[in-house]
């Protein structure tokens, strides 16, 4: 919403400066976006008088002047045709910036004569379009006073209007708010009633009163739309960015912004038959004045004649029956439309207009006759013509439900003391009709506002006017000892992130969306969760896994020349359309080498065991019993079938890890291998509430443990984990640890065999092992491993 200072002052009697007004607007909730004040650029410019005016010795059009600026008399070369002896103009001394050129004025030398300053045109000062000559001020203008004080400068103020403040989409509403805040007085609005000389020749009928409770029409005959819109109106419209078009259009635009009163004007000669306000028929065609064609539905309101819908009521006029420059007879519409109907129609057909913008928020339902009268008098003044009687369908009888405000509620809700007298003053100034009941007041909201329903709304009106900055700031009382801020479930997300970062991975945050064309393999058999209205085609599905986005990130980094990376993200993935059909997952990828080339030459390619280690670290960080998870080799299809695994607790999958399938990488245009993991945090059991925090007793044995190595030959398809488990379980009491220290295939081993060498730690307890005891323990290991895996000791 834009307006000029002079426009505001048409409604508000105030001596406040534009800066004071701007500050107040923001503090009462009409946030100032911008103040464009040409005066700000005129610092240093002063009035000055031409005391000598001769022709330039070397030119037939330049003048050589002596200019008195009150302090000194300066020699100035001037090219303006209107300069003459005695002219008082705006003088720019050397050193100021000329607004129009945005350049500093220096001592000039024009055809050999020095010039110490210049006299300016309106255009050069950016206060008008005139560049035919210099500004000529009245002869009695004192010299040496600031330019901004003598020039007619009209700053433009732009404010943003929140959806509840529809009445401030008109300058008068803004003025009323400022007056209520104490910054001046609201001037009365004087509207000439026009003497009607005849009856409206067009019959008007409302058949949809639920969408259009009041409709007024007035016929004006013999208008001259070629007439010129008055300069003041053109200036105001231009200042707020509306191009003056013709008097009829300009008047309706002006009222939209002056009083937040939308109007419509039909070319009456084009209308056929009666004007009927009715709901459109399904599929009924309509061509807007923007020449767009629509198929209407039964929820849209039409202003219709015998030839169909001629105006989409309150939203946009139609092409067929609109005014042109040659229009002579018009029908002026001023009506009340229901916000719900306008909002629905506008949204459904995606039509934006100043009219829709106002109607869907609130237009004073009792302002139709007033708006018609005002517009009629303006049209008659500008275009001439004769007005008919006004036709009014429906009744202007809107009255808001009274709302009660307990005076103490301002204190108990807003925390500020405001006296009863001040409360009454503010509400009265805002237009409320009040009935005092001692401890409370009953307030009837003015018809120009539709946003006051509750006591809290009235409290807001009070605090707006009193100023939010005057409310004291009180720290939150802490009468209870606070609980832990994060739940165990939230805390483990934080710890998991820090654990993965401490493993050298970079945390990233990627969209919750992904590209449905690329993420198909990651859906794990679930239906895609598609957006109905994606912002771009590549972000059209809620991600079924974090990995697709990490792979895109890998692709992008590789394209930038970063081939080695370790990235992770902890966030949601989606497996269904309904709320809560999502899970929290920690996922990461590594690709390339552990580092770039290095003199120690210990860089290596990331492999599946890095991903497995990441997964285990993340599980452990999330308090998951990583050590008791079973590993199987049935990871989803987007992993390498032979280089991936699943970690499970019972039935629940807590992680996948492995190399990403090369076919998937191909789709993401990634060459080389990528290893990845996904840890499904929601499948990791949470610690029991109030679980015992004490640690298990530490058992220390004074006797030294004994390490023994055993190599087994076993079928290639036997999982190492099974061999490890069998060895560990061979003797629960004395075997404290089993490690695999060698894996070997080929050599003199049979084709389908491999050798796995274990290093077993035996821990003696009360006394050292005898040779026989140690032998016995090793035999148990050999036996158990053999029994479980068909392994034989390697000779």
């Amino acid at each position, binding site marked *: 919403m834009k307006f000029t200072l002079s426009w505001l002052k048409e409604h508000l009697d105030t001596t406040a400066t534009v800066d004071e007004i701007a500050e107040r607007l923001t503090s009462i909730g009409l946030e100032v976006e911008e103040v464009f004040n040409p005066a700000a650029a005129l610092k240093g410019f002063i009035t000055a008088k031409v005391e000598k005016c001769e022709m330039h010795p070397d030119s037939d059009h330049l003048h050589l002047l002596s200019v008195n600026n009150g302090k000194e008399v300066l020699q100035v070369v001037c090219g303006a045709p209107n300069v003459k002896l005695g002219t008082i103009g705006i003088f720019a001394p050397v050193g100021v910036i000329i607004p129009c050129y945005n350049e500093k004025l220096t001592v000039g030398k024009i055809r050999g004569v020095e010039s110490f300053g210049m006299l300016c045109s309106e255009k050069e000062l950016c206060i008008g379009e005139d560049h035919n000559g210099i500004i000529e001020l009245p002869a009695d203008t004192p010299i040496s006073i600031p330019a901004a004080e003598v020039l007619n400068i009209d700053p433009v103020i732009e404010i943003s209007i929140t959806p509840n403040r529809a009445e401030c989409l008109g300058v008068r509403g803004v003025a009323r708010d400022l007056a209520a805040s104490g910054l001046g007085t609201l001037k009365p609005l004087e509207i000439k009633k026009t003497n009607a000389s005849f009856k409206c020749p067009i019959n008007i009928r409302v058949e949809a009163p639920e969408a259009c409770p009041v409709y007024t029409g007035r016929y004006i005959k013999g208008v001259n739309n070629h007439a010129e819109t008055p300069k003041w109106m053109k200036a105001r419209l231009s200042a707020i960015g509306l191009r003056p078009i013709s008097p009829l259009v300009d008047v309706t635009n002006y009222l939209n912004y002056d009083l937040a009163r939308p109007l419509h004007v039909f070319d009456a000669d084009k209308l056929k038959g009666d004007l009927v306000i009715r709901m459109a028929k399904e599929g009924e065609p309509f061509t807007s004045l923007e020449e767009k064609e629509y198929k209407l539905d039964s929820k849209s309101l039409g202003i219709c004649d015998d030839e169909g819908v001629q105006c989409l009521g309150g939203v946009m006029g139609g092409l067929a029956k609109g005014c042109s420059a040659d229009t002579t007879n018009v029908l002026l519409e001023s009506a009340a439309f229901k916000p719900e109907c306008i909002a629905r129609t506008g949204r459904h057909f995606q039509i934006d207009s100043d009219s829709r913008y106002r109607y869907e928020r609130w237009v004073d339902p009792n302002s139709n006759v007033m708006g018609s009268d005002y517009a009629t008098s303006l049209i008659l003044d500008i275009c001439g013509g004769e007005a008919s009687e006004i036709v009014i369908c429906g009744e202007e009888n809107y009255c808001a439900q009274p709302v009660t405000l307990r005076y103490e509620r301002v204190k108990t*809700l807003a925390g500020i003391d405001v006296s009863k007298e001040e409360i009454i003053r503010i509400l009265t100034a805002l237009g409320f009709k009040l009935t005092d009941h001692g401890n409370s007041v009953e307030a009837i909201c003015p018809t120009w506002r539709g946003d006051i329903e509750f006591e809290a709304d009235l409290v807001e009106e009070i605090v707006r006017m009193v100023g939010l900055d005057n409310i004291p700031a009180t720290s939150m009382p802490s009468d209870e000892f606070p609980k832990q801020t994060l739940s165990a479930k939230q805390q483990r997300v934080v710890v998991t992130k820090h654990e993965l970062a401490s493993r050298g991975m970079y945390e990233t945050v990627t969209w919750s969306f992904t590209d449905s064309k690329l993420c198909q393999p990651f859906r794990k058999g679930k239906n895609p969760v598609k957006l109905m209205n994606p912002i771009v085609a590549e972000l059209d599905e809620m991600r079924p896994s974090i990995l697709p986005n990490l792979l895109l990130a890998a692709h992008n980094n590789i394209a930038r020349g970063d081939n080695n990376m370790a990235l992770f993200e902890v966030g949601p993935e989606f497996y269904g359309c309904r709320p809560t059909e999502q899970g929290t997952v920690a996922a990461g990828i590594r690709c390339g080498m552990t580092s770039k080339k290095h003199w120690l030459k210990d860089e290596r390619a990331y492999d599946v065991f890095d991903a497995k280690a990441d997964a285990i670290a993340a599980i452990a960080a999330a308090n998951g019993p990583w050590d008791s998870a079973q590993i199987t080799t049935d990871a989803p299809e987007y992993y390498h079938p032979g280089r991936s695994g699943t970690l499970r607790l019972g039935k629940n999958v807590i992680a996948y890890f492995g190399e990403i399938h090369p076919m998937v990488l191909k789709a993401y245009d990634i060459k080389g291998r990528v290893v990845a993991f996904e840890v499904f945090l929601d499948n990791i059991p949470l610690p029991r509430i109030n679980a015992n925090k004490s640690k298990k007793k530490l058992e220390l044995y004074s006797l030294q443990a004994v390490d023994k190595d055993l190599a087994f030959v076993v079928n290639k398809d036997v999982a190492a984990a099974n061999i490890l488990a069998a060895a560990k379980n061979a003797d629960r009491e004395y075997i404290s640890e089993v490690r695999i220290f060698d894996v070997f295939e080929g050599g003199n081993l049979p084709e389908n065999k491999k050798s796995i060498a274990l290093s077993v730690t035996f821990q003696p307890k009360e006394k050292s092992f005898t040779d026989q005891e140690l032998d016995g323990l090793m035999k148990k290991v050999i036996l158990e491993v053999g029994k479980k895996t068909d392994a034989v000791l390697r000779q």
Partner: protein
Amino acid sequence: MEDLKELEANVLQSINNAADLRALDEVRVSVLGKKGSLTEKMKSLGTLPQEEKIAAGKALNILKNTIETAIDSKKHELETAELNKKLAGERIDVTLPIRPETQGRIHPVSKIYEEVVAIFGQMGFEVAEGPDVEDQFHNFNALNMPANHPARQMQDTFYIANPDSADFDDSFVVRTHTSGIQIRTMEAKKPPIRIIAPGRTYRSDFDATHTPMFHQVEGLVIDKTTTMAHLKGCLYDFVKAFFEIDDIKVRYRPSYFPFTEPSAEMDIGCRKGKEELKIGEGDDWLEILGCGMVHPNVLRAGGIDPDEYQGFAFGMGIDRLAMLKYGIPDLRTFFESDLRWLKHYGFVPLDTSSMTGGLSNNGGLAR
């Protein structure tokens, strides 16, 4: 005795001349070995008469001690020389760089989450969560935004079809704010309530200052006595703690949100320079959050009696807080996973946030 003196002189000379440990050992064997010269003399003591035996034995023992001491001393000298020679050969250029290590990073969004949690935790807030895909009731209607409410158009909403209903009004939305968690919290627990709800939020907007996904933190306080004065105190305490500036300037402007009444926006004082933004000084203002007293319709929708309870709510952008506090210029870069950006703007793994251990910059320098 004369020959003992001579022996001593010869032996000490040989010890001194020994070039290495082997030569020294040869000297030792030649003197103190089974057939060594001194050993031989010791053996011959038995042949001496009793009265000479004692004196001669004593002299021999003294000589033996002298020689042993000389050998030990020489041995130590040679060993030291040998070690020094070995160490000299082991010299490496310690100016060579260390093995490459990658120090990971925590994303700024996670960092701000932790800071915000730490500060509001201090004020007795707990963290609440809700789903990213919401029903329209929790995202809009319960927040006093019925279907035709103009504020619903302020938010460009992503929709997801409801598999159980073809009616558009039943379709789900990708939450446009975390405010729906207010309602879910009220449904789940009785007042007093003090929660913050951080999370991902989504709007169909993509330009220099908007991304289709961003992060918000919502706050909700419900009890019987909380007023706007507490709202101001709470938020002032927050921005002061968060920006770690003791005398931060703030102002409040009346505003409009469907779910609060009265509503306000909070600005913080700053100076907007050409290149950078300085928080806490200067005469410019920067909008930082929206807030207000919870609308009675919202309390009702959450099953709480507005005649008995009241409170406030606020919401602010986590990414925006990160940009302001840590001088990150472009919101879009938050979600690009550019390794160079993550390394530069990310936080080191030990950088954790608490009101006791420090809010920021406490994880050491980045490597």
